[in-house]
């Protein structure tokens, strides 16, 4: 079964401290993984995707197929990073040409001044 697990509901760190948001997935095949973010009173939006191997707002995420993980990291947290973060997996939908996106339950990141 396809599943995305985010074990932490809440993560609170001090400004300037490193951040790691954990994500594990279950998928038979080659997964496409994403991190989405939702800032206060804003819509859910894409933060980064694994295939791009990019750093967005200082965040990076590495796909580890052996551990089936896609943890989100940032070396120095900033107050504006406080938000809800969702790990997501894109999979081929049966009987459809579209992809379907499966989300984890999210981790609320709180940066303390």
């Amino acid at each position, binding site marked *: 079964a396809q599943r*995305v697990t985010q074990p932490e*509901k809440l993560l609170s760190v001090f400004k300037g401290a490193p951040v790691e948001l954990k994500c594990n997935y279950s998928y038979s095949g080659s997964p*496409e993984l*994403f991190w*989405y973010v939702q800032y206060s009173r804003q*819509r*859910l*939006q*894409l933060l980064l*995707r694994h*295939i791009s191997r990019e750093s967005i707002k200082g965040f990076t995420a590495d796909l580890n197929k052996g551990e089936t993980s896609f943890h989100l990291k940032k070396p120095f947290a900033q107050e504006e990073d406080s938000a809800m973060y*969702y790990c997501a997996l*894109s*999979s*081929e*939908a049966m*009987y*459809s*040409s*579209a*992809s*379907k*996106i*499966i*989300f*984890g*339950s*999210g981790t609320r990141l709180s940066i303390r001044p």
Partner: protein
Amino acid sequence: DAMVIQNPRYQVTQFGKPVTLSCSQTLNHNVMYWYQQKSSQAPKLLFHYYDKDFNNEADTPDNFQSRRPNTSFCFLDIRSPGLGDAAMYLCATSRSRGLNTEAFFGQGTRLTVV
């Protein structure tokens, strides 16, 4: 410059009274999704459209239906809302096939059932 618009933002409906939530997009994307999100839970995919092709998730209750009259609009109909249907409903769009396509979300409609 909103690209995916959901109306209304807040909807209160009576137990058992049919309700319709709407979503429109200016992106001309082929795919539209409806998600249900309850408090502290993952957004749960209810169904999606690829153009006019409708795809229901296996565990989506029959109480939930959808219509897509054209590329821009998609509706979520709840035929007989129960208290358990109170949730945030998210509409999203993406371009056609391709695992790496980004989903664009609306602001959501928070449904309350009284």
